């Protein structure tokens, strides 16, 4: 099967993620969309690894997974702190910082 189909899927996933970040209002969902974007990039890496015939892309995919896990830890800590003090995880409610 043509490997470039995976690139199209990856681009589609990335777009869905990016659109989700822009239109969704719940911080958790926004965060999930960002994770989707990271995974889309991972899929591209693995596909290119296959196309190019070397392993660099697969190694990068593992690094990305580790970094994404760290990001989850930091991100959820911040979102939970916000939720506890505001009783809401909506990014629209957090609007103290505007002129």
């Amino acid at each position, binding site marked *: 099967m043509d490997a470039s189909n995976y690139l199209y899927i990856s681009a589609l996933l990335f777009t869905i993620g990016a659109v989700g970040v822009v239109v969704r209002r719940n911080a958790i969902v926004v*965060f999930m969309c960002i994770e989707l974007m990271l995974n889309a*990039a991972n899929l591209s890496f693995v596909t290119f690894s296959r196309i190019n015939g070397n392993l660099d892309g697969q190694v*990068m995919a593992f690094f990305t997974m580790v970094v994404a896990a760290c990001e989850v830890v930091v991100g959820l800590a911040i979102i939970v702190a916000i939720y506890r003090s505001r009783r809401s995880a909506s990014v629209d409610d957090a609007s103290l*910082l505007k*002129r």
Partner: protein
Amino acid sequence: MTFTSPVLSYTLLSPMLILLGGALIGVLVEAFVSRAKRPIVQLTLALGVLSLALLQVWNIRGEQSLTPAMGSIIIDGPAVLLQGSILIISIIAILLIADTEHFTALPAALPGSEEERKAIAMGAQVTEVYPLTLFAVAGMLMFPVAGDLITLFVALEMLSLPLYLMAGLSRRRRLASQESALKYFLLGSFSSAFFLFGAAYLYGYSGSVNFAGIQESVIGGSGNDVLLLIGLAFLSIGLLFKVGAVPFHSWAPDVYQGAPTPVTAFMAAATKVAAFGAMLRIYYTVFANAEWSWSSVLTGIAAITMLLGSLVAVTQRDVKRMLAYSSIAHAGFLLLGVIALNKSGLDATIFYLLAYGIATVGAFAVVTLVRDSSGEVTDLNRWKGLGKRSPFAASTFAFFLLAFAGIPLTSGFIGKFSIFSAAYESGATGLVLVAILSSALAAFFYIRVIVLMFFSEATEDGTSVEIPSILTRTAIVASAAITLILGVYPTPLLDFISDLAIFIR
């Protein structure tokens, strides 16, 4: 199957290793040292580690190597200069962070809860901020010396993740502080997803994650240009976000305003050096032969960044937001040095980064001093007549503003002059005109603040100027002294930079 162990040259890697080791010891100190002793132990550790790393950077100046860590790190002149700048800025910034008055007593407690009151009454302090700072500095040191896309991405996250957390630790106005952490985190990881996607396409383009391999493909020109363009565009979005260039700047004012002021100082100055360092390496070496693909786009971004930063700063009523927009404008000026793509552009950008970083830390240090009963006062109207109440605070702040504006006898003048002339030399005349116009606009609002401080009648509203602690005073005096010395007698540093600043490929 045989396993070949990697060859590492530990001397060249030592600044980063020292910082990471220090940060890990800092985590252990959190676990094993009693609460009362922690602040002083952590501060000593952090200062010691940063100074040791700076000493080590000084020792390895002049060294050049493409393979200190099997090709994933590149140590050369610009690397040493940028690492040195980051460490000097961090040492001054850690003196501000040591003033724990700015940080919440217990980050996990609800704002205004009984738990929080108890923690404050007990005199609890967040000492976690020191190891977090050290981890961030280690990431910043690694960012401009990365030699492949993996290291670049890991370093980007290593410098960002601690900063997201530090932005949410403010003692006063905790809701605003947490909000700034959330915004910084969501937008920051959004941009790193773009960065990563771009990295994937560059890998697809060249078949290598190594900068040398990508550069080979760019020079050879055999690859698919569509992949190159997508990759370069998305990678640049990630980098431009970190430096706060328009249109990726929207996080900056909110985060600068909400974060605790010492953290703002550290983040504003050191992140900029690290991110511009990485940009210089990427555009000056890897994509130098693909100038057609990025030069005109960056020129446009630089022009709107300078203009928008200066224009919007004029309308700000809050000191920290004003400094945020001013930092956006400065990101535009710094982009001139990247676009110049010549030796003098490289020298000028490195000098400008150090000069601007030091002045920024100093300016935010003064902001921490102006307080009332509920914490810092950042409303510009309440800074009226500050010159009469505290000549020290007002005059140092005025001096830093003059440095931002680029008035002669300050480091800002030398920085602006050299970066503008480098861009002019490279033929970007139109852009230099825009830069001069926005400098004039920017000078207007800096001078407006100075007039406000010295020539307006003071209002009786309970604003007072704190007597600075010895650490904060040291930070302010050191930044002011460096800004003055670099303005009056910059030749030794300029010569030093131009001797060292040569990228190896």
